[in-house]
């Protein structure tokens, strides 16, 4: 029990897209039905064992005492054996279901992200995507392994226990029929009463966890101003206040667990006492009533388990919401045609990316091999238009490539003709060589050096220890912003793409460096069509296209 699940069973039902994303994997129905059949078999086996055991005990106890025949003992053992086997089989089935469903979800997430390409990286932090992929297993597996099969299991076990009890001793069944639903009602009422408090507590808990993280993130500033001890005090004080508040809420929140326990044990006690009174009065016989008593925990147990399994569903929700959100981004339609082999000639008529918030459109042409600067106020969708040109997202209006509508182009083959250099290119934590060969795995060192020379980086790389083998990225050599941009440009040149889409590659550079880079792009990309998004003055001799607000 953490403080986190305090908020359980009180949140509103998840919205539909979340449920749809969770239930998307195909082939969930059959294993679930099979699991339910196993639950039924197991519950019947348990009932058989208990009924026979009660009969055996009653036989030796009530006069005339008789010894059990071996069949009864073996029958009880058989019932329990069935229970053990079906339980294990259900577990195996659930594990296979979880493995299948999480693999499917991960595969789908991967395919979706690859289709979105740079779009997936532009809107969110890279770390979030990694979290999404690495949390997928731990968060979704319990949902498929526990929660989904658990619901049917709880219902079946409770119904079988109730049915068999009704056959054995209707009075006990009636008692269960009253206490069972009453427990659910009480749980619901307790949930209502604690809803607001647990919500508030959940927020506070997140804030405290966040506060520690934020403070550590601010440590540089705190150190610079000698304020570390002050803020440590603040942290300790707020943690103390947090503990007291948490305990106040837990006192109420644990009531739901209390109700469940109370109902289960009190029902057992009530059933036992009532049966005792009736047996004393001679209104009942021992064998069926003893079996009924033994079945009481089988009625409440699965209900209690279902309450615990709900955490699995709540844990899966935030992740499923992210998956659903990714699904909602419209992808570009795929076609079958190919663009002409020359450097692409582009025509735009009222074109823009089909994304929310993107309004400004582009009209104009870019000749084959021409270098054009693309301008417009920030936030109107210049980067998004580049993404649409790469067929990573859908577009509206008209875009043609050498006369062929963009939508009719085959996405895979078109992707090989296009290279996009983002605002902040990411270097792999690998050697210079591996970074350069990202899109051209077969390029030899000669080709790499040529590309490096074209972007004026050959001197820098040659000076590194290990030259092409020098490690880059996390923990490796630090390249400056300008050098990283030039390396990404070399990578794009090597890819063999004849349409270069450059997205604000000079934003973080000072004026001189930016001018150098612009001149260099003009030289290195000769013969290729270039579309350069920039806030600065366009390089001399480049034509400018401007996005227009509607």
């Amino acid at each position: 029990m953490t403080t986190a699940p305090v908020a359980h069973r009180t949140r509103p039902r998840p919205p539909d897209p979340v449920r749809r994303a969770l239930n998307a994997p195909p082939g969930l129905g059959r294993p679930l039905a099979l699991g339910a059949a196993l639950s039924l078999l197991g519950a019947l086996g348990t009932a058989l064992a208990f009924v026979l055991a009660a009969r055996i005990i009653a036989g030796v106890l009530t006069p005339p005492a008789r010894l059990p025949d071996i069949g009864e003992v073996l029958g009880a053992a058989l019932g329990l054996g069935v229970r053990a086997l079906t339980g294990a089989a259900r577990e195996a089935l659930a594990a296979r279901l979880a493995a299948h469903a999480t693999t499917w979800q991960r595969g789908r997430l991967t395919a979706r992200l690859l289709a979105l390409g740079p779009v997936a990286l532009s809107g969110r932090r890279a770390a979030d995507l990694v979290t999404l992929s690495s949390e997928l297993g731990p968060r979704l597996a319990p949902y498929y392994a526990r929660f989904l099969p658990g619901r049917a299991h709880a219902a079946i076990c409770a119904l079988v226990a109730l049915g068999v009890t009704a056959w054995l001793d209707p009075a006990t069944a009636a008692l269960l029929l009253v206490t069972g639903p009453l427990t659910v009602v009480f749980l619901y009422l307790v949930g209502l009463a604690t809803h607001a408090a647990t919500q508030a507590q959940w927020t506070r808990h997140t804030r405290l966890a966040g506060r520690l993280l934020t403070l550590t993130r601010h440590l540089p500033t705190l150190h610079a101003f000698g304020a570390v001890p002050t803020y440590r005090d603040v942290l300790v004080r707020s943690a103390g206040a947090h503990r007291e508040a948490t305990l106040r809420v837990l006192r109420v929140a644990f009531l739901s667990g209390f109700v469940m326990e109370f109902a289960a044990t009190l029902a057992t006690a009530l059933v036992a006492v009532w049966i005792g009174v009736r047996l004393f009065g001679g209104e009942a016989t021992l064998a069926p009533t003893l079996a009924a008593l033994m079945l009481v925990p089988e009625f409440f147990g699965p209900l209690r388990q279902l309450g615990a399994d709900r955490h699995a569903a709540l844990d899966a929700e935030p992740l499923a919401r992210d998956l659903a959100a990714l699904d909602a981004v419209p992808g570009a339609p795929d076609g079958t045609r190919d663009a002409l082999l020359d450097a692409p000639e582009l025509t735009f008529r009222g074109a823009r990316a089909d994304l929310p918030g993107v309004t400004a459109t582009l009209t104009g042409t870019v000749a084959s091999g021409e270098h054009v600067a693309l301008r417009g106020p920030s936030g109107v969708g210049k980067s998004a238009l580049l993404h649409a040109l790469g067929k990573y997202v859908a577009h509206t209006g008209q875009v043609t490539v050498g006369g062929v509508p963009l939508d009719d182009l085959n996405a895979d083959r078109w992707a090989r003709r296009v290279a996009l250099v983002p605002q902040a290119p990411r270097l792999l934590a690998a050697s210079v060589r591996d970074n350069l060969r990202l899109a051209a795995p077969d390029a030899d060192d000669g080709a790499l050096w040529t590309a490096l020379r074209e972007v004026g980086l050959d001197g820098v790389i040659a000076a590194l220890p290990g030259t092409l083998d020098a490690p880059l990225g996390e923990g490796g050599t630090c390249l400056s912003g300008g050098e990283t941009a030039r390396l990404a440009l070399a990578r794009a040149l090597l890819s063999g793409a004849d349409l270069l889409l450059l997205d604000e590659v000079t934003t973080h550079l000072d004026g001189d460096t930016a001018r150098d880079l612009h001149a260099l792009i003009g030289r290195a990309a000769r013969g290729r069509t270039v579309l350069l998004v920039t806030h600065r003055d366009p390089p001399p001799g480049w034509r400018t296209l401007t996005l227009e607000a509607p």
Partner: protein
Amino acid sequence: MTRPVRRAGGWRPFLLPALLGVAATLAGVALAGASGRLIARAALRPEVFLSLTLLVTLVRGLGVGRAGLRYAERLTGHAAALRAGEEQRAALFDRVSRFGRDLLARERGGDLLARSSADLDARQFAELRVTLPLLGFAGAALLAGGWLLSLDARLGLSVLGPLLLAAALPWLARARAAELAREEARLAREHGAALLDALSASADGAAQLWAPRLDALNGQLRRVTQAQGHLQTGLTLGREALFALTFTLVLTRGLTLVEAGALGGAWLAAVVLLAAASFDALTPLALVPGAHAAAKAAQERDEALAAVRPAVTDPVASSPLPPGPLPLTLDGVGLTRGGRDLLRGVTLPLPPGARVGVTGPSGAGKSTLLGLISRDLDPTAGRVTLGGTDLRALALADLRARIALHEQDAPLLDGTVEENLRLGDPHAPPERLRTLLDDLGLADLPLDTWVGEGGTRLSGGQRARVSLARALLKRSDVLLLDEPTAHLDPDTEARVLRVLGRECAGRTLLLVTHRPAPLILADQVYRLQDGHLHPLPATRKKVI
């Protein structure tokens, strides 16, 4: 400060919850036994109902008491765990804060930090999830088994044996479970990294090259999940089979005993029900190995964090600093990072009251130069001195008390504008804060404005000026300004520069900028290029 945190507060706070937990588990087992005894006695129709009253009361009491005991256990257990967590939180902050200004520069450190919050939870609740369930089970097994043993040795063993074996099963499987969990985490991380690489490559149209590798990783992950399932299946089968075995053994042995007259027939129901109920006490044990592994992994990560050495540490015995303005000198400073020389033989004297500007191309190492003075990092060659003493011999707090810093990205604390300004001077009168903001062109920014996470609710220009004001407010002899006017339009820039000129009178000023305007504040300007510092002639400084 660096010793591993194990169990803050010791075991004492957990004594009461442990006792309550054992009592609650026992109450459950005893309830089953007493119920069986009650109805068996009742079925024998004793002369008077009164002889059953004690049992009836016992059953009722156990029925009500168990839920209450469990509730009390959970509440007291959480209180103890939260108290322990509080101490661990403070200890974690201490551990992280010794890194000062360089932790977040390390990716590994950042990773450890990001996990630390979940890890705190894992360790904080380890007692609740590991120790208490184990104690509860042990108590129940001991008492139930002990009673049965006292009745008959073979009867006791036929319950205790399978029960202990069933409890040991998850424990025996814990190494395999932990291994699978580690494998799953490793593969998931690799899949995430490959996914990121693929997305970076997608810009060059090469995403599809990664698809086979991603598929392979996904397949491996599937196999790990399945292996986890197999393990779980085995555990379930073992537990249930042992239950079936116990039940059958107790039943047959009990019958034999009744037949031989060694056990009253009325006790048989009690014995069978009690044996069955004692298996219920196993349920919470299923989660123990997982919680234990999580707490252990958290502990290991904590130790890994403790083992990371900060790049900059306090000297063992620090030299005292004399009061008053002191000369600051960079003396033949060189800095090598990742195999590249960022600075080579940089010498820069800053006598008290000097005003120096440094300019140069992006990435030349201008900010690094300031970092050497505030000791975010130490030079690989040469030395930086304050008042003739090497900075590495000074206590970090003493050094930083003498320096006011404005950083390029102007990081603000989550809080109000005033809270941020008060970092500079906790005791400044409110009018002083207000006037300074007004002078900097922030007249319409109330002091109680909430700045948002990292200052994101302010515009770049507002944030930069609040950070500048904060540095100016600090009573220190040395002022280090990194791109003080980066986000400002020319009018505001001129206004800010006037305020800076006024406020830094009498203080040593070192400013770093790639914009030309701020250099009018400097008496001497240097250009930093290719790791060398070149003085620019005084006449040229206006035209840069």
